[in-house]
């Protein structure tokens, strides 16, 4: 299996490390900034392609780790060439775009695997299986939280450009919309607020979202770009009618660093969660995607999951803007 990777930022780099742990061969990289691609290409003895089009004839799979607003066009191009796709979350910038790419991949008969990596984090995977096994009964109120600092990347920071990334309600909080839906099923309505809606110049951003599920369960999702670097914290609470699951990254960190700061030390541009485990969740994810592509095994996250997560995120953006709850059309069943 020959893989080409688009984008060499944090995710491109992380995915490359995952592919390197599978029998697949990384053929090459392409990115807006060719220079950044150089180091990775050298590390994996791969080529640098000037663009996606020139890479396509050489690969079986394209792993898209480009900024969100570029996903739509790239997926359509890859699907048209009959190649499989792994795509970073969010699957697309809008629901309409996400529908189009899912449809196009279905028509082209290619797989579309969406990197909702939270499903592969051991604590989140264990909580899911604990619920799925019925250990805590029926989920009633779910609380999911994810927070760090604003992505830094000073040069043309697409994360902070709402048109490109969707901002905190889409880029960060989509992880937990997807997870809430994995736990409690389809979502009926979405109510959201965020700091920058009211205070565009605020030095922080913070989103709060309430999801009502068809099952009657309620999910509370909080996303923060409001902590000092290098903080990254996540919290999970699933309260069921026969038990409760709690996870807090602060209190379960096996190592606490009280190391004196040295000159020049700085936080990374984008914070990533970390608790030492023997295999990176990003690698677990890529291995499962490899098995889906190589052996037609079903991955734990589908293209439809990627689509519906975008739909929830878009509803959250609408709700935060209008101040009113937004009802969701049932896209999952239509797929």
């Amino acid at each position, binding site marked *: 299996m020959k893989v080409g990777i688009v984008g060499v930022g944090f995710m491109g780099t992380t995915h490359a490390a995952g592919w390197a742990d599978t029998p697949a061969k990384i053929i090459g990289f392409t990115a807006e900034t060719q220079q950044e691609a150089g180091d990775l290409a050298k590390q994996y003895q791969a080529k640098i392609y000037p663009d996606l089009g020139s890479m396509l004839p050489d690969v079986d799979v394209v792993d898209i780790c480009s900024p969100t607003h570029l996903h739509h066009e790239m997926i359509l191009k890859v699907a048209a060439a009959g190649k499989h796709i792994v795509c970073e979350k969010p699957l697309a910038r809008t629901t309409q775009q996400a529908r189009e790419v899912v449809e196009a991949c279905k028509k082209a008969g290619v797989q579309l695997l969406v990197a909702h990596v939270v499903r592969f984090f051991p604590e989140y995977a264990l909580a899911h299986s604990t619920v799925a096994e019925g250990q805590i009964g029926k989920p009633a*109120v779910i609380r999911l939280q994810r927070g760090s600092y604003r992505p830094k990347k000073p040069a043309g920071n697409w994360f902070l450009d709402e048109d490109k990334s969707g901002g905190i309600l889409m880029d960060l909080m989509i992880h937990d919309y997807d997870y809430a839906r994995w736990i409690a099923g389809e979502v009926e309505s979405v109510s959201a607020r965020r700091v920058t809606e*009211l205070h565009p110049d605020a*030095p922080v951003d913070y989103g*709060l979202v*309430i999801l*009502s599920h068809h099952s009657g*369960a*309620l999910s509370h999702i909080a996303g923060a770009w409001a902590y000092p670097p290098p903080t990254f914290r996540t919290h999970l609470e699933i309260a069921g*009618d026969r038990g409760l699951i709690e996870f807090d990254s602060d209190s379960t960190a096996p190592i606490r660093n009280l190391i004196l700061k040295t000159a020049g030390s700085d936080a990374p541009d984008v914070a990533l969660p970390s608790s030492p485990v023997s295999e990176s969740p990003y690698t677990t994810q890529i291995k499962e995607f490899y098995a889906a592509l190589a052996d037609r095994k079903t991955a734990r996250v589908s293209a439809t999951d990627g689509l519906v997560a975008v739909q929830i995120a878009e509803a959250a953006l609408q709700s935060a803007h209008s101040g009113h*709850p937004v009802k969701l059309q049932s896209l999952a069943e239509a797929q």
Partner: protein
Amino acid sequence: MTRIGILSFAHHHGEAYISNLRRMQGVELLGVADDDPTRGEKIAGQNEARFFPSYEALLEAKPDGVIICTENNRHRPLVEMAAARGVHLLCEKPIATTLEDARAIVEACDKAGVLLMTAFPMRFSAPLLEIKTRLEYGDFGDIYCFNATNQGELPAKYRAWFVDPELAGGGAIMDHTVHLVDIMRWFTASEVETMYARSNRIFHADDVEVETGALEMLTFQNGVFATIDASWSRPQYWPTWGGLTFEMVTQRGTVIVDAFRQNLNVYRDDWQRSNWAYWGSDMNQAMVGDFAAAIRENRPPRVTGMDGLRAVEAALAAYESDRTGQTVHIKNL
């Protein structure tokens, strides 16, 4: 000597207030009365307090103030009776279960010129007072939002009426919305403008008729927004009754508050589970102390009847939103 009586032990806080009153200088527990004489006499006996055969009899003994611990929907007649006799009032929360009663309670006390305090003990929580002081000092700049929880176990084990839709005025929403609404009003000095709420009855579905799970999204007139998790989502074997937490997001970053975090972890052979033993300061003591001091100094208490009314408005708006699925705009009275 400030003489204070307790009317009813329908609310289990009544018993705690006996010890709070006993611990104070310059305060005398005049006695107690209860329309459930078996319950009242028993508690009076256990605490060596004087038992009055009726509420009227206690009020005839001319207390300076009384603490009302009836069921939530039975506050009004006792407030009116005490106010008419010029007796100051500390009333359990929620101050009423309908807007009509809440308004009547506030008006009766205004008219009679007696003090009316709502039992919102969180206003006397040492960690929350610390935050309030830092807010006033300007440590945080502007507040943007709160992500708050007031989660508890099903309170039926304390008193059966806590889960009675009529007597309690509802379930988790009525029980838990008012505390955080009051804290946020206190911190922001602003009033709730809109309320959106969703509830369910999945916890204890077969045991109670009222909602047991609830999430709320509210906005304040000054633009601050918040969510409140008011759910009775703690299992009965949780290490304590529940808790109250919030993340407050401000211009200067975020502060995370867990008001009941000051605990020892206690592990005992005979319990076979962990237990949290609270060592933080007793908020009820400070609250009852402020009530007595307000009477003595003839000044308003630090939390008023109007604060109680505003919190009930918000809780009732949450019920309306839950019924309609829409955001409710609150018109302050």
